[in-house]
């Protein structure tokens, strides 16, 4: 089972992101489950959503306490919520920011994890270009597909197409695609750096 925890704020499409991811996995004949953390949903309040992906039916209903991957939609949460809590040592981290892990003051923390599994992507800026609103969720799913390979960009795009009307979907698919390519380039840079180093 592969477990993803998504952190963000009310209004950023955190719950929708987990739902879309579950639909993308379903489209690849996987079993998947997405559920929110059911707070009193207020704009700006910290929100968590969860997604599990497996090859067999998923019965487990507890919140994801030991995730295999984290998507952080809002870097301002880093110092407010224990977003990294329970992350596995080989876990993936994708943060929505134009800055690097070093810029965020996470250089030392990042050393505990596999470098090739960590990435930042300016998802809000990408979303502004393609969707016209600061909704980074679809971009981040594109980035997640590139970083983890757990779902394909095509499945993410199909899930977006299923959920939204055509025009909104097209913008979000474009954003997911740009973020996918961005993360792929970052990973190549990282791999080249690791080889050189």
């Amino acid at each position, binding site marked *: 089972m592969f477990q993803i*925890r998504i952190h963000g704020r009310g209004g950023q499409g955190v719950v929708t992101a*987990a*739902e879309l991811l*579950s*639909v993308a996995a*379903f*489209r690849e004949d996987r*079993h*998947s*489950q*997405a*559920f*929110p*953390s*059911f*707070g*009193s949903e207020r704009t700006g*309040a*910290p929100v*968590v959503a969860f997604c599990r992906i497996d090859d067999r*039916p*998923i*019965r*487990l*209903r*507890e*919140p994801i*306490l030991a995730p295999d991957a984290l998507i952080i939609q809002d870097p301002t949460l880093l110092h*407010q*919520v*224990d977003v990294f*809590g*329970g992350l596995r040592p080989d876990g993936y981290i994708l943060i929505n920011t134009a800055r690097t892990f070093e810029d965020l003051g996470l250089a030392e923390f990042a050393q505990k994890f596999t470098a090739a599994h960590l990435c930042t992507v300016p998802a809000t800026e990408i979303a502004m270009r393609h969707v016209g609103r600061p909704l980074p969720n679809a971009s981040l799913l594109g980035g997640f597909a590139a970083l983890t390979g757990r779902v394909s960009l095509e499945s993410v795009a199909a899930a977006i197409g299923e959920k939204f009307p055509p025009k909104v979907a097209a913008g979000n698919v474009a954003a997911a695609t740009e973020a996918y390519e961005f993360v792929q380039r970052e990973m190549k840079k990282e791999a080249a750096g690791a080889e050189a180093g």
Partner: protein
Amino acid sequence: MLKQVEGSAAVAEAIALCRPQVICAYPISPQTHIVEALGRRVDAGELTPCEFVNVESEFAAMSVAIGASATGARAYTATASQGLLFMAEAVYNAAGLGLPIVMTVANRAIGAPINIWNDHTDALSQRDCGWLQLFAEDNQEALDLHIQAFRLAEELSLPVMVCMDGFILTHAYERVDMPTQAQVDSYLPPYEPRQVLDPADPVSIGAMVGPEAFMEVRYLAHAKQQQALELIPAWADEFRRVFGRPSGGLVREYRTSDADVIVVALGSVLGTIKDTVDEMRDQGHKIGVLGITCFRPWPSVAVRNALQRAQRVVVLEQSLAVGMGGIVGNNVSASFSGSPERVHTVIAGLGGRSITRGSLHRVFGQALTDSLEPLTFLDLDRALVDRVLERERVQRRSGPIAEGILKDLGVVAAKIG
């Protein structure tokens, strides 16, 4: 057809396939998505003939359902929590009048303090009202049980409550196999009422009955529920024939045949329990699970048979009979042929408290080593409770409990579990 959808959307689609003629509801979390989805279908003309009635309260919702059902319409509503309590008088009337209404209860805690999260207190508060109560383990079963519920309700002329865990199921996206209209039509024939308000053939429904016959009317209600104990497994079998999958029934056993300890529970927590039990089986522990699908009527014989070889029984329930202990636990004790002190009640997950494998391992481990108390509150923060008790001891005007305890706890917005 396989789909990956929200539980509420799956149930709404299943309800639509059942061809309800009147849908009435008052919005309350966490059932709202179900009736919103149905409202859109009616509005779009996808569900005809069907009238969607917006009402001003839950009391009105059940009253409209009663009126609609009495005129021979297939009637559906949904509610949760305080909404169910607010309609309680009409809930009893629907059962007493023998009207086959189907209602979803998206299980949620009852205040005060106000709490929108999941537990079973709402449905269990109405356990003696005369409705059948079925509990879904996952979203597939939630949608399947609604289809069975209409069949059961109309055959018995009794209302049926389908209980699904609020948020945990209603708001979860997971895979469901959505039946076809033809399958549902072949399982659920058009509603043929036993009683109907018809201007061409006038009757009155709801006569006053005095001491001369009230006992007999109530006895008949009980007898009908006993009859349901035979019909529910039969229709679950027929469901399997038509839809090709097992769903519903009275109880479901999991790895119980050689189990020394059997855990009894209702609803979606059964999934987490089964995963925990698998892990404990891998460690060599003889533990199994008994899921209660049908809580009313209480399947006493099925429960007794399932538990007869168990050394210990752990009833894990998301409800509390304040001043007494467990509600499900009490029912299980009455059906357990062994010594009553071998039935342990674990109150868990009240008001949305997460029920985790870690905590279940601990409490089931205690049952295996004979160290489990008769009544346990899973993951209770005892220190927090003691602070309140101490404040009340030293200070007459100790203030409201809920506000005081939140102050003691500090900010919880950052907590993940």
